[in-house]
């Protein structure tokens, strides 16, 4: 049965089997393929069967719908076509059989096992596609692009609010620090906040910070509304509404 694959970079986020009903794509949650990204219009495009063909239609989206890098209003889709909606891609897979056995990996990579080899783009796509099919837990949730802020509730700092847009935010007296603490007894590098794929983690510096009154034990995932304490400084961690 034919299907669509929703992708972001190399990751396959979702597999959508094609039935008789049209598939709608957009930012609104009631779409078949809902993409939570500002580059995507609420009702962006739809894909449906017509006279034995598969057709894509742009629904007057702001940023457009692209098929193999060409902007389209309406187009016939073929096997392997790549539809671009915002930063996401939808791949058309018309000749899809049921899940491929994991054995299929071996065929591609069989020669000289001991020798390091590098897959080219085509091979890599194929293998990753197979990996996604073989893995039942393969659906990775799309990364949300939400940038949290630190708001200063107490203590002396160089700003009252910080947007955590960087990979690493250092909190301390050091010149390297993003959140600069003031005062004689402020720690040089009191704590750090590290952005990872799944969120923001608070880690120790030369002090052990507290979250909601409790000293942390190693890296700790920060949640909306957490209060971080480093010495006399209190910071409120929050995501934009």
């Amino acid at each position, binding site marked *: 049965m034919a299907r669509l694959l929703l992708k972001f970079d190399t990751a396959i986020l979702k597999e959508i089997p094609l039935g008789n009903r049209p598939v709608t794509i957009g930012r609104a949650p009631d779409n078949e393929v809902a993409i939570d990204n500002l580059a995507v219009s609420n009702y962006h495009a739809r894909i449906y069967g017509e006279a034995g063909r598969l057709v894509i239609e742009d629904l007057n989206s702001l940023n457009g719908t692209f098929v193999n890098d060409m902007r389209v209003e309406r187009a016939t889709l073929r096997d392997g076509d790549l539809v671009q909606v915002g930063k996401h891609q939808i791949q058309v897979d018309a000749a899809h059989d049921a899940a491929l056995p*994991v054995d299929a990996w071996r065929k591609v990579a069989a020669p000289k096992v001991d020798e390091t080899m590098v897959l080219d783009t085509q091979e890599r796509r194929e293998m990753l596609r197979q990996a996604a099919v073989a893995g039942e837990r393969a659906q990775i949730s799309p990364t949300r692009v939400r940038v949290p802020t630190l708001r200063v509730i107490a203590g002396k700092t160089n700003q009252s609010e910080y947007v955590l847009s960087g990979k690493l935010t250092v909190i301390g007296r050091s010149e390297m620090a993003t959140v600069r603490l003031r005062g004689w007894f402020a720690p040089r590098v009191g704590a750090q906040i590290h952005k990872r794929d799944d969120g923001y983690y608070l880690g120790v510096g030369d002090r052990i910070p507290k979250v909601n009154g409790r000293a942390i034990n190693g890296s700790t995932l920060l949640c909306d509304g957490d209060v971080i304490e480093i010495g006399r400084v209190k910071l409120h961690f929050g995501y934009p509404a």
Partner: protein
Amino acid sequence: MRIEVGGNTHVGRVRQNNEDAFQIERSLNLYVLSDGIGGEEQGEVASALAVDTVVRHCLESENHRAAPLFVEPRPDLSERTNRLMSAVTLANRKIFEAAGSQTEHRMGATIVAVWLQGERLSLVHVGDSRAYLLRGGSLEQLTSDHSLVAEQVRRGVLTPQEAETSELQSVLIRALGSEDRVEADADEHLLLEGDTLLLCSDGLTRMVTDPEIASTLLTIESAQLAAEHLVELANDYGGHDNVTVIVIRALSGSTGLFGRLRRWGK
């Protein structure tokens, strides 16, 4: 903070050539390690080119702040990290061009590079050479391998145990020189006094377990001796591949007269 570094490389017990390369650039606090891929002498050429290109590009940028960047700078990364990304991008291009049209002699290389600036650490990598951080007795892998088995683990197809015995461990999904563009991973960390960083090729991690690596780094104080001992361990366990390690220790940097006298006495 004071930095002590040690590095070592060995061909291993099985291979004929050492296709690994590393460089410790103390003037910049820059540490680079690469594992070459390719038949005949291609792997050696690729890894040497990778290390050399990265170090040169970073040195140049120190002398000319406005030296061109070979990547679009990412706003979430520091200037240093973007510079390191640029260096790795340039290394990819050079290896890709050196390989030319000879598809039979495809060559490539992994890379892992660390650049320290005060307590900030920039880390960029491609492939399955790794960076680890030992802090407070526990060893954490800072990089995720760009290998097929690692990707399978991330996607839940394999368990980490199955991955260790997979016959596809040598299949990389990203490397320098295999295509005209490369996607490198970049990260930043905070380095604290007492931390130890380890950069290594897969010749170490395929032979020596993480707990053994941790206990070596915890028991041998000298960075150079620890690096040598890790290489020895890999060889004792069979030395199936070239093995290379760089050990970087962040020590207390008491710069007062007492601290200087104490170090002078050593």
